[in-house]
């Protein structure tokens, strides 16, 4: 076996030591990693730029639509206001009490032997109508003539209104004699209170028929 002598072993050892320098290797690894990170960062930055251009496009689209939407919002609010105001006003209009038909009905109830001296009508807060009528009635039985007027009024008002009440507030004979159709007739003074409503009060809902379930 031949003897092999390495006379340069120290130089070779030093060279190997230099090649294995951890700092050098670490710096190379860090450099490589840094390069990879930079590439990844650049890729992300490119994607962000793309997103930014999408954002500016979206902003541009919105800026075109925004004035229309704002004016549409305003118009919509205005229209809703008009609709609701008109609804409330229509409710007020429909909820009015019309006095002309009432006066017409009242005029039909007054016979020749009766005279109304005063009519006071008021629309109450709860929607009821209150009427106070004062007048004179003449006849052989003046009280009967007044009663006839009351009953006629009750009948006439009952045809158009609800919850009609017609009651005497006062009814008294007078000493005065009046001549009607050539005949002397006694007189009575009367006062009538009438109350009624124009709307039917809502009945409570009745339950529907029970359904039989056959097994």
């Amino acid at each position, binding site marked *: 076996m031949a003897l092999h002598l390495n006379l340069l072993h120290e130089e070779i050892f030093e060279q190997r030591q230099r090649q294995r320098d951890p700092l050098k290797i670490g710096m190379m690894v860090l450099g490589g990693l840094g390069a990879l990170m930079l590439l990844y960062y650049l890729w992300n930055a490119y994607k962000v730029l793309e*997103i930014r251009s999408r954002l500016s496009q979206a902003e541009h689209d919105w800026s075109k639509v925004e004035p229309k939407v704002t004016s549409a919002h305003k118009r919509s609010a205005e229209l809703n206001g008009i*609709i609701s*105001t008109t609804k409330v*006003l229509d409710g007020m209009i429909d909820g009015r009490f019309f006095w002309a038909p009432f006066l017409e009905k009242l005029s039909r109830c007054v016979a020749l032997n009766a005279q109304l001296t005063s009519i006071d009508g008021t629309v109450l807060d709860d929607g009821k109508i209150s009427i106070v009528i004062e007048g004179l009635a003449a006849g052989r039985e003046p009280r009967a003539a007044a009663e006839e007027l009351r009953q006629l009024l009750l009948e006439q008002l009952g045809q158009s209104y609800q919850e009609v009440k017609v009651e005497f507030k006062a009814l008294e004979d007078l000493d005065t004699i009046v001549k009607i159709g050539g005949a002397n007739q006694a007189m009575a003074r009367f006062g009538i209170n009438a109350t009624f409503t124009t709307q039917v009060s809502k009945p409570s809902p009745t339950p529907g028929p029970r359904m039989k379930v056959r097994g």
Partner: protein
Amino acid sequence: MKQIKVKLSKNQIQKIMLSGMGFVVLVYVYFSFFLGPLNNSRDTMLGQITELQDKVTNSKSELTKTAKLEKQAETATNRFAALKALSPEGAPIAWFPPRMKAFFANQQIDKATARLENSSAYKETDLANWMRYSWVIELPQADFASLGTAIAALENAEPLLSITRISVKALPDDPQFQQITMVASTAMVKR
């Protein structure tokens, strides 16, 4: 099994530690100052894009709704304009009494007067731009039939007028005629 033992000198260990620290610093700087802010800005922009796209999508339906509403509200708009036109420009006390006087004169009832009793705002929020005026209308002399006809015409001609109280008294000297006092409330646009 053969075990490979690597002997590291103190100098080499120091260098390895230095490289490790360099690695940690690199990673920290990269995520804190580069990638983190970039990702944050990306997320913010994506959120803004979604928000804007939602807005644009909603705006289309909003515009459609408004167009539909415009069609539906045509009747209400016309009616509202007609009701508004019942309140002319100017203070109501300036034009309402003459209007009533002229109206009753047309109905053959002379000497009608109207005076303002009070005015107040409506409680309803929908009527924020409207005022309630209460008027006392006096007709010193009218026969019952003319009165009925005039009131019917008034109630038809003035939809926003509502007679809340009426008092008819026979004139003692002339029982054919009556003296009438009415309280009427009207809704009028605030001017």
